[in-house]
């Protein structure tokens, strides 16, 4: 019995640990496209960018229980043969499986506008963080396209390094989609107080510069100059290699509560982490793909447990999903933390402090709290997570 986990990030790691924890003693192979063991990505836009970090500082501890796992690095999956039950890799390697786990995560979305080549960056992996840091250290001013978490964190880090920052984004406010206009506006003001210039509701016409990007031009005719340009405009799930198996691969791999790709058939395919889309049963029944910190761990644990259960009993583990999405973001001295799904709310209620300072903000949908976001108030947020799990 061989379980092939494609993707050597946090979700793949937790799946392997959970399989061993649940008593699975068969073969486990983990194949990753990067040359590294699983490592912690959130510091890439923060400390690793500001101070430079070694990959050894970022690698997750690997438990004794998974010491016998076979690791393959530096190779990406190209296609899956559902009849032969094998995955073809870029190097030509063919890996067979009895159970396949997709843990291939996401890649940065790129802007499809003309121009530029060099001096254009995105940030997802360790090498990209290193390259960006090296270039940023020689830069006086930078342009960041996108005002989501990554864009805002890079902006904060760059300001700490004394670099001029312009943020260009299509949304009306920073972090608009996950946190809404009011909170986003307050966050923009925090950034502006630190000298970041925002160009919101902006449409980018193209890159400036011949070989190297020297900025961007907007459809309004405005030009925004920088020594380098960073694209932080969201991500795309890495699902192309799973095509042809009849699974729903629209915006990630649709999975049931046991993390099994659907519609399921006799071939065992599961998905975990950022690439998986599923319903958060504590909130509603709409499948969502949410890229928050705790979910690779939650989905990896669930998948390991349900695969082991299925292999032992022949039955699918039916257990509602009780995950509460959670993330944090460090921007300057401010720590933003969130529980739940604030992005689905229709109104907000500031229950403690004010948006300009330390605060606790409830996010409500039809009068019911579906998320809570705080700035520098982690102690006050804690009870909310419990309440999500207890009220349902």
């Amino acid at each position: 019995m061989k379980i092939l986990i494609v993707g050597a990030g946090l979700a793949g790691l937790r799946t392997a640990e959970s399989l061993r924890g649940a008593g699975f003693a068969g073969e486990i192979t983990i194949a990753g496209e990067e040359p590294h063991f699983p490592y912690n990505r959130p510091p890439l836009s923060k400390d690793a960018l500001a101070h430079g970090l070694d990959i050894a500082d970022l690698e997750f501890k690997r438990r004794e229980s998974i010491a016998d796992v076979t690791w393959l690095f530096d190779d990406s999956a190209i296609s899956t043969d559902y009849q032969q039950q094998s995955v073809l890799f870029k190097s030509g390697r063919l890996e067979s499986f009895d159970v396949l786990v997709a843990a291939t995560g996401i890649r940065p979305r790129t802007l499809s506008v003309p121009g530029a080549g060099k001096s254009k960056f995105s940030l997802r992996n360790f090498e990209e963080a290193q390259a960006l840091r090296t270039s940023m250290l020689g830069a006086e001013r930078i342009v960041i396209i996108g005002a989501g978490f990554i864009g805002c964190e890079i902006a904060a880090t760059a300001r700490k390094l004394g670099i001029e920052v312009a943020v260009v984004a299509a949304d009306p406010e920073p972090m608009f989609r996950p946190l809404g206009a009011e909170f986003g506006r307050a966050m923009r003001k925090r950034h502006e107080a630190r000298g970041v210039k925002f160009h919101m509701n902006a449409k980018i016409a193209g890159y400036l510069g011949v070989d190297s990007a020297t900025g961007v031009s907007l459809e309004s005719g405005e030009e925004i100059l920088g020594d380098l340009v960073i694209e932080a405009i969201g991500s795309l799930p890495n699902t192309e290699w799973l095509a042809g198996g009849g699974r729903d691969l629209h915006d990630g791999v649709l999975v049931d509560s046991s993390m099994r790709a659907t519609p399921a058939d006799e071939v065992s395919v599961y998905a975990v982490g950022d690439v998986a889309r599923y319903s958060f049963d504590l909130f509603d029944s709409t499948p969502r793909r949410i890229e928050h910190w705790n979910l690779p761990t939650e989905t990896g644990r669930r998948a390991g447990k349900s695969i082991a259960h299925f292999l032992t009993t022949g039955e699918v583990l039916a257990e509602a999903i009780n995950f509460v999405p959670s993330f944090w973001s460090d921007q300057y001295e401010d720590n933003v933390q969130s529980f739940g799904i604030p992005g689905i709310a229709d109104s907000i209620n500031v229950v403690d402090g004010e948006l300009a300072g330390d605060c606790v903000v409830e996010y409500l949908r039809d009068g019911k709290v579906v998320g809570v976001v705080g700035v520098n108030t982690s102690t006050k947020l804690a009870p909310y997570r419990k309440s999500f799990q207890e009220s349902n």
Partner: protein
Amino acid sequence: MKVHVDMEKCQHYGQCVFEADDVFSLGDDGKLVYKVDVDDSRRSDVESAVDVCPMQAITVE
């Protein structure tokens, strides 16, 4: 077992508290407080706390 938190790394997010609230807690000042000597019967939950720490600041011996 012995629990250790690297307080240089810890940012007091409190994720560990959800996994093992008899071992980890946040004080009124928002700072993490934890027990060093913990009974082995709590190992599974404490290891979960190690897993979910955003800063990967917790170690167990």
